């Protein structure tokens, strides 16, 4: 019967409450955390703290988090000194039972009051759905914030989760790296609790190697006097706790350094590299170093990859876009003499670049074409054979695509490009820098004297690599990109390895999206059904074991990607896409064509007559569907009413015109013809009853409507279109 319902009491004295606010700081000091984990952990910490404060009725103004490799911190500002008092209401017996005829409390009422520890006179009543009941109200006093934090912070810390954690001591606590200190303050008061074998207090540690650092003789750390002083105190210990500030510092230094060498920072993944620096350093300071000019003979992509991936260095280009023999290295030290550090970094980079040059020179000693047999030794997937087998299939598909696309003049080029497309994967350079696949293939193919078209195709067929990336720019590149992806898709579907839910380890959705983008954006009208059939034959001929099907399931998979494209890029209506994708000959595999249909239909939805046309069409469609009427010849002599004859004529005319337009892929034209049927259909329904008393007239009218239905269906399943008010 009793149901405690704590409710907050609104502050009665806002002025006094303001005076009694305080602040809170928690810092979790650890050994260096992986940089990728810090930002998500800060978000998580803020979220947990919000929940914590709400659960424990601690009023506050703001929650702010900080993070460096060696610490996660959260500060709560405008924190109430005490928990908000709560009124806890408990329902007791019904009013009818609680009071006698004279209105005096009964034993039941007294018993309830006693059990709740209140006076009978203080009991109130509450109206409920079941009637009026007694209610005891207890005031829960608010505990001091410090008490609440001390007691419950270990529980909060326990809730932090990370993608990869470890144990290090008997506490058994899991965290990404060992926790070494904890700071917890409410106002000027240090809180003392134990977690992960560490006792919390007021002492933090600064930059490892400067005043207040752990590795400095005699250092006792940094005492944080109040949460408000946290940022400043750590700044004196050479630690910038706010990542936004560190990002500003790094970005500013990079810009300034670039300007000083008359260049600008060049990085494909600049934001990610900057993130890495922001979250790897406590005291960011960028230095400028040089490398030997002779390395500029190595392709700039290689130099940039070497600097970025191995060392985390930024590259710099001049006004003409040429790479400069310099680098910007983010360091964690700000000392007067950066010379020693710069020299060290230069030496490390020189060794890296020497290695890259070694690969570049060695790789060019063997032609790409001569490397192809080595692909026998590289597994594509254990159920799908080697990369050599994949290459064989890709060559065949590239040739078939050139034929189907009506581009026989590029067939030989496509096949040559396909032959060489995977050969760079067995070069030393791509082994060292996998991100340079394709890039190196193009360079090496050019060195081997392959044709320009083949080189370009090898260089660009991995595009689009991301949703924002452009599709390949050349015809050969596009056809190669399609044949590589279609083979991959067909192969995995054929083997029954299909993405499910969020699991897509082989990036098949990305591959399919690439296919859609290339056919749509390059305007390639290709029946992919033919290609996928051939892909299946090739897999079968190579003896790959079938575990699934590269037919309908893959078709549906590609259709889903087309739908995703339609939704996210041009922003088509769902019912427009349903109409086009849901039409009777659902096996159509010309995705460019489907796209054009969607495009035309989407465009016409805004026309004035469109909705009423659809209303009329749907009426015809429903009747035909209900009667399960099939296509029959309309007997002209039985058309008695003028509206019937008009509609029949209009349908006959439109049939020819729509047919021509569809054949020419002129879907805007086809839809214009259909719009023209609006008034004949409307007048027909106004003029005659389909259910004529004479059976032959009725049958003839149904046949006429069936022709209307067929005519519309040639474009798509327009019955899917939603009309306002229907």
């Amino acid at each position: 019967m009793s149901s405690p319902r704590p409710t907050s009491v609104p502050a009665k004295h806002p002025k006094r409450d303001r005076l009694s606010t305080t602040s809170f700081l928690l810092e979790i000091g650890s050994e260096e955390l992986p940089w990728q984990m810090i930002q998500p952990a800060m978000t998580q910490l803020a979220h947990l703290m919000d929940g914590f404060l709400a659960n424990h009725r601690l009023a506050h103004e703001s929650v702010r988090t900080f993070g460096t490799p060696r610490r996660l911190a959260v500060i709560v500002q405008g924190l109430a000194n005490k928990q908000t008092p709560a009124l806890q209401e408990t329902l007791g017996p019904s009013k009818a039972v609680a009071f006698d005829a004279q209105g005096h409390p009964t034993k039941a009422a007294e018993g309830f009051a006693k059990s709740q520890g209140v006076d009978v006179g203080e009991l109130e009543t509450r109206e409920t759905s079941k009637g009026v009941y007694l209610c005891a109200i207890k005031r829960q006093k608010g505990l001091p914030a410090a008490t609440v934090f001390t007691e419950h912070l270990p529980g909060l810390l326990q809730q932090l989760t990370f993608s990869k954690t470890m144990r290090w001591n008997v506490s058994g606590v899991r965290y990404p790296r060992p926790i070494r200190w904890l700071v917890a303050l409410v106002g000027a008061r240090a809180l003392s609790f134990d977690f992960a074998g560490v006792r919390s207090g007021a002492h933090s540690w600064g930059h490892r190697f400067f005043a207040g650092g752990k590795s400095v003789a005699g250092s006792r750390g940094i005492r944080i006097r109040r949460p408000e002083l946290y940022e400043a105190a750590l700044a004196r210990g050479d630690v910038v706790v706010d990542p936004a500030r560190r990002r500003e510092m790094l970005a500013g230094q990079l810009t300034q350094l670039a300007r000083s060498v008359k260049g600008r920072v060049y990085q494909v993944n600049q934001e990610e590299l900057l993130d890495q620096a922001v979250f790897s350093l406590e005291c960011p300071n960028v230095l400028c170093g040089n490398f030997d000019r002779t390395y500029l003979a190595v392709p700039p992509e290689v130099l940039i990859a070497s600097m970025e991936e191995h060392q985390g260095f930024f590259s710099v280009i001049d006004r003409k876009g040429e790479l400069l023999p310099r680098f910007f290295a983010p360091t964690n030290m700000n000392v007067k003499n950066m010379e020693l550090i710069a020299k060290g970094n230069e030496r490390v980079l020189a060794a890296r670049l020497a290695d890259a040059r070694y690969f570049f020179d060695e790789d060019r000693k063997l032609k790409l074409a001569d490397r192809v047999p080595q692909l026998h030794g590289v597994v594509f997937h254990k159920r799908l054979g080697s990369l050599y087998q994949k290459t064989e299939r890709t060559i065949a598909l590239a040739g078939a695509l050139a034929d189907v696309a009506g581009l026989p003049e590029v067939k030989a080029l496509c096949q040559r490009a396909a032959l060489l497309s995977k050969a760079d994967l067995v070069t030393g350079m791509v082994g060292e820098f996998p991100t340079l696949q394709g890039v190196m293939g193009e360079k090496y193919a050019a060195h081997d004297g392959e044709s320009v078209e083949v080189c370009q195709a090898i260089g660009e067929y991995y595009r689009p690599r991301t949703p924002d990336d452009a599709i390949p720019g050349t015809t050969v590149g596009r056809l190669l990109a399609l044949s590589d992806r279609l083979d991959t898709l067909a192969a995995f579907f054929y083997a029954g390895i299909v993405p499910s839910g969020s699991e897509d380890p082989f990036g098949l959705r990305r591959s399919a999206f690439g296919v859609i983008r290339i056919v749509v954006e390059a305007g390639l009208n290709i029946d992919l059904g033919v290609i996928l059939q051939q892909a299946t034959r090739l897999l079968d001929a190579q003896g790959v074991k079938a575990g699934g099907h590269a037919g309908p399931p893959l078709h549906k998979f590609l259709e889903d990607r087309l739908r995703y494209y339609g939704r996210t890029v041009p922003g088509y209506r769902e019912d427009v896409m349903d109409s086009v994708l849901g039409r009777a000959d659902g096996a159509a595999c010309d995705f460019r064509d489907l796209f054009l249909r969607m495009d035309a239909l989407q465009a016409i939805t805004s026309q004035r007559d469109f909705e009423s046309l659809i209303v009329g069409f749907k009426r015809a469609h429903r009747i035909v569907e209900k009667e399960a009427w099939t296509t029959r010849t309309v007997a002209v002599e039985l058309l008695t009413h003028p509206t019937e004859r008009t509609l029949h004529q209009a349908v006959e005319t439109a049939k020819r015109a729509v047919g021509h337009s569809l054949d020419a892929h002129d879907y805007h034209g086809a839809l214009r013809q259909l719009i023209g049927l609006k008034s004949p259909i409307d007048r027909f329904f106004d003029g005659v009853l389909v259910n004529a008393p004479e059976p032959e007239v009725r049958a003839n009218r149904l046949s006429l409507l069936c022709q209307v239905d067929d005519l519309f269906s040639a474009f798509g399943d327009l019955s899917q279109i939603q009309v306002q008010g229907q």
Partner: protein
Amino acid sequence: MLGSRLQIIYAILPVRSSGYRSLAATTSVTLQNLILSLHQFWAKHDCIICQPYDLEKGAGTFNPATFLRALGPEPWRAAYVEPCRRPTDGRYGENPNRLQHYYQYQVVIKPCVDTIQSLYLDSLLTLGIDPRKHDIQFRQDDWESPTLGAWGLGWEVRLDGMEITQFTYFQEAGGHTLDPVTVELTYGTERIAMYLQGVDNVYDLRWSDDVSYGDLFHDSEVQFSRYHFEAADIAMIHTMFASCEEECRTLLQQGLVLPAYDYCMKTSHLFNVLDARGALSVAERTGFIGRVRGLARGCADAYVERRKSLGFPLLAGSGVAQAASSKRKRKRLPS
């Protein structure tokens, strides 16, 4: 010249741990002095100075003093030099930075101590590397050995951008969850020495005052590169691998875990040779790795059983145990 410059720097530096004087301050930074200095440092920190294990291996982790000692509850503190062979890294003595045979300096401490990062940095100071003048960063590097069925979390330590040490908190080995946790430090001795001597070519390193690394090992690099890449008899090594695998399994059945582990180590090295020789396809590689891991797991299981049957002798009373337990009395942070 570099030595004398460092000498001046160190003359004005308050050396943090008064017991250890900087190597650079006292002697020239030869590779052999670097090793001696690390020996002294870690011996003073209660580590047993072990000797290298007398079998070929790809890393100091394979030494029973790390892989086997990390298993089970017994405490352990050891430091040793470990010659390592990585056949695929051979460059015929032509690359100034890559070697197919080199020397790791390995420190293993179980249970790991709270001050291990500071201890490690102190060890660098004794080598003449002042963290206040360099940029030392701990960059995430999670370690995994598929052949040992082992993994751990840690860092590669970078000195002015150069990786000089692998720092790992072992979490699992031979398929066993490790409790207590062992921490492993693996110094790249050649790299650190190159940095200290200011040389860009490993063959120019001074091993002692008058003998260079090249004098000692250049021809070995040339010969072993030729052997691993061109001459190794693939069929013979395949046979050896199979024989060693068989022997390991047989010995495990007889409860001879230490000899069995020797044969497990041998299979690992033979696999590396086959790999360098280009004799394995990707699929075969995976198969071979799985076979070595199977042996390593078998050895780990048997080793824990064996130590248990002996009553975990290092757990109480022994010198190692006492040294470790005295370290457990952690100094509390000032508060």
